[in-house]
């Protein structure tokens, strides 16, 4: 895992390792340990108080970053998973079901990247086929039928670009979710927890309230894709990440999300439990806020209707 950590984290990991070794003989090394811990704190502060957009991209994809299944366990109780789209298959890139967030009953839908190699393959790295979007919509409609709010978690590099996905109507599946979610007469609250990859993310994020973890990203295209198409050079991803304005701070400023959910200093992966507690509190608050306003589908349309920036020519 350490090998996969982003480059900018490596000096920190190296220091941590040294401290751990010294701590084997704490009496002998006390002075050195204190000094190194102070050094670690300073370096961490220096890095994390001014992360570049591309560093946030790396944090959003961090191999140790908590994923949907972590939050599912840490935030919800009594979760029952429901499978399948009733047409073709059960897409394991999306986990859907019903559970409770404290006393509130809700439908829970999220994109799951998986942790181990075999899980990642089974979950297709969180990249849905059409049946994943159709399963998600089926559960949303079920939630609407029984007046249960819908909570979604976004973490996907994007919808899967493959032969089967195209044959079975990837574009139609996403388009249909966008239209049907807009009409849903129950609250929809979305958290972007890692990667918000384009249409594949939006297909479960046409919501009344959208929050984003501080180091999550949400973009029309991956920085690598943008770099290779527009800059004609895939190695310029860091530049593209800055140009695309894909961080939570950018998106709040652009009015596309409602709130930034703070992360423990150094990133969510350093304290997953605390991260889940913070997120849980925010989700509960968001459900209450959306319910208070009512008029779910109309307010949702008005929210998205305003998005974009145009000029009126004379």
């Amino acid at each position, binding site marked *: 895992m350490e090998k996969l950590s982003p480059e900018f984290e490596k000096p920190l990991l190296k220091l941590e390792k040294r401290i751990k070794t010294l701590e084997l003989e704490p009496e002998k090394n006390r002075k050195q340990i204190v000094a190194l811990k102070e050094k670690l704190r300073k370096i961490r502060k220096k890095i994390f108080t001014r992360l570049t957009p591309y560093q946030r991209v790396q944090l959003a994809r961090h191999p140790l970053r908590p994923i949907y299944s972590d939050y599912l366990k840490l935030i919800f109780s009594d979760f029952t998973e429901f499978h399948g789209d009733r047409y073709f298959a059960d897409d394991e890139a999306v986990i859907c079901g019903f559970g409770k967030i404290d006393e509130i009953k809700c439908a829970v839908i999220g994109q799951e990247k998986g942790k181990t190699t075999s899980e990642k393959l089974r979950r297709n790295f969180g990249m849905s086929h059409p049946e994943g979007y159709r399963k998600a919509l089926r559960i949303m409609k079920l939630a609407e039928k029984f007046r249960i709010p819908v909570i979604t978690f976004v973490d996907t590099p994007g919808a899967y670009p493959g032969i089967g996905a195209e044959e079975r*109507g990837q574009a139609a599946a996403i388009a249909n979710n966008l239209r049907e979610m807009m009409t849903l007469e129950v609250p929809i609250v979305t958290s972007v927890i890692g990667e918000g990859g384009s249409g594949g993310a939006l297909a479960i994020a046409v919501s009344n309230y959208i929050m984003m973890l501080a180091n999550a990203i949400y973009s029309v295209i991956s920085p690598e894709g943008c770099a290779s198409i527009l800059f004609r050079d895939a190695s310029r991803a860091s530049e593209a990440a800055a140009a695309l304005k894909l961080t939570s701070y*950018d998106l709040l400023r652009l009015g596309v999300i409602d709130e930034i959910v703070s992360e423990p200093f150094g990133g969510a992966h350093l304290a997953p439990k605390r991260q889940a507690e913070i997120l849980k509190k925010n989700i509960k608050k968001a459900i209450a806020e959306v319910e208070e306003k009512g008029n779910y589908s109309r307010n949702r349309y008005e929210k998205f209707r305003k998005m974009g*920036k145009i000029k009126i*020519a004379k």
Partner: protein
Amino acid sequence: MSLKSENGLWFKCFSCNEILYKNQIEENFYICPKCGNYFRIGWKEYLKILADEGTFRPLFENIRSDDPLEFRDVKKYKKRLKETQKKTSLTEAVKCGTCSVNLQRIAIGILDFAFMGGSMGSAVGERLTLLIEKAANSKLPLVIVSASGGARMHEGIYSLMQMAKTAGALALLAKKRVPYISILTNPTTGGVSASFAFLGDVIISEPRALIGFAGPRVIEQTIRQKLPEGFQRAEFLLEKGQIDMIVTRRNLKDVVSRVLKIFL
């Protein structure tokens, strides 16, 4: 038109190399009379194919792209917009308005690939949303002709949000029971196919048009194999149950008005 011309009078078909006269192509609905190749055409030609002559009234021309991200790739987005406007005499990648099709008044939007690949940014999304809202409020049947590579990256997340916006407007249109015919032309992919283009009550495609969510190159890179011949072409989509019908340019107008009559 993606046709090579020496003097504007005659063209060479890039598919079969036949030398063709301009009026010969126009009379043949911009299809090569020798090999049947569909030439890429713009909004004007589609309007000529679909609308009764002289009935088009443009709408929302004053809605223009801004540059919300102050974006630049190899050149500034602002500059690219200006140059494209000059080159294409279009103000944006979609032309909207009302017109008659065999005397039936409709609301029409035509994406033009010549304007930054028909890509959808805020202005395209806004024009189409206004058009859909107008169709809903005036109970005008809606026809949208798509030709697009997808969302316009230069406007970042705002481009993505136009997908939700146009899809949401179409939900309103459906509620008012106003018919919407979506016509897919070569190519229709990405954020355009995954929003309004695939939400038609009836989806018609031109023969051979490339239609899909992901572009073929991205798929080939992902699965590391060559795609089969005809993959993501209109005929393939018809076979897979993704579209209602394939219609030639010659028959397009009559089929559109026949389909509208079913629902009106």
